[in-house]
């Protein structure tokens, strides 16, 4: 099977709609197909990976820990847009510390989050072959 560059674009906050949860389910399945997968967190999508999500008060399952497993599924490129954080009064410190283990480097833990500017994000998007939006 061919290898294509897939990008999953996340622009919505979690819990208010189902898109964040169901798009994550697609990402996990994509790992089985050994494609070159990237995630983009733009606009309200940055809220999907904030630290300290506590959903007890709203009766929904907290699925934020699933993002931590992405490294194990070889999904290691999570592009986060700086301007989207800034517009929302957030910094990278507000985000979960997402890592992957590089088996070619003695399983050293490396960050999965790649902070990019808006124009760098545009460049990354332009390289993709299949872009899925939710």
């Amino acid at each position: 099977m061919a290898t294509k560059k897939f990008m999953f674009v996340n622009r919505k906050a979690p819990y208010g709609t189902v898109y964040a949860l169901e798009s994550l389910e697609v990402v996990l399945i994509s790992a089985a197909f050994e494609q070159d997968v990237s995630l983009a967190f733009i606009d309200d999508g940055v809220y999907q990976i904030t630290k300290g999500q506590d959903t007890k008060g709203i009766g929904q399952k907290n699925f934020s820990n699933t993002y931590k497993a992405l490294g194990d599924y070889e999904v290691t490129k999570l592009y986060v847009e700086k301007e989207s954080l800034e517009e929302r009064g957030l910094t990278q410190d507000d985000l979960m510390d997402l890592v992957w283990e590089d088996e070619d480097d003695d399983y050293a833990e490396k960050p999965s989050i790649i902070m990019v500017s808006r124009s760098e994000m545009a460049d990354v998007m332009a390289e993709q072959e299949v872009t899925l939006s939710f």
Partner: protein
Amino acid sequence: MAMLHIVNKSPFEKVSFRSCLNHAKAGDSILMIEDAAVGAIDGSSFSEKLKAAMADKKVYVLSGDLAARGLSEDRMIDGIKTVDYAGFVDLTVENETTQSWL
């Protein structure tokens, strides 16, 4: 690789259209469908941003969606082209990839 950006929400309802314009690159095409068609009309608070994008991108609107919302083509920003669904398909063929800004 040139990209076709498909926008479907009104720029007055959601930020998607604005976000699309913030990420589209020179040589890309932008197609307005569904409620995004309202963005084609000149003289709105969104027009300047769209006109600026048109300096190096091609902008299209699906004619059926414009007409459905009671907006006539002669009120469009100069330089926006109308297409029908056959033209929509052609745009997806001519551009190597598509991205939908929902």
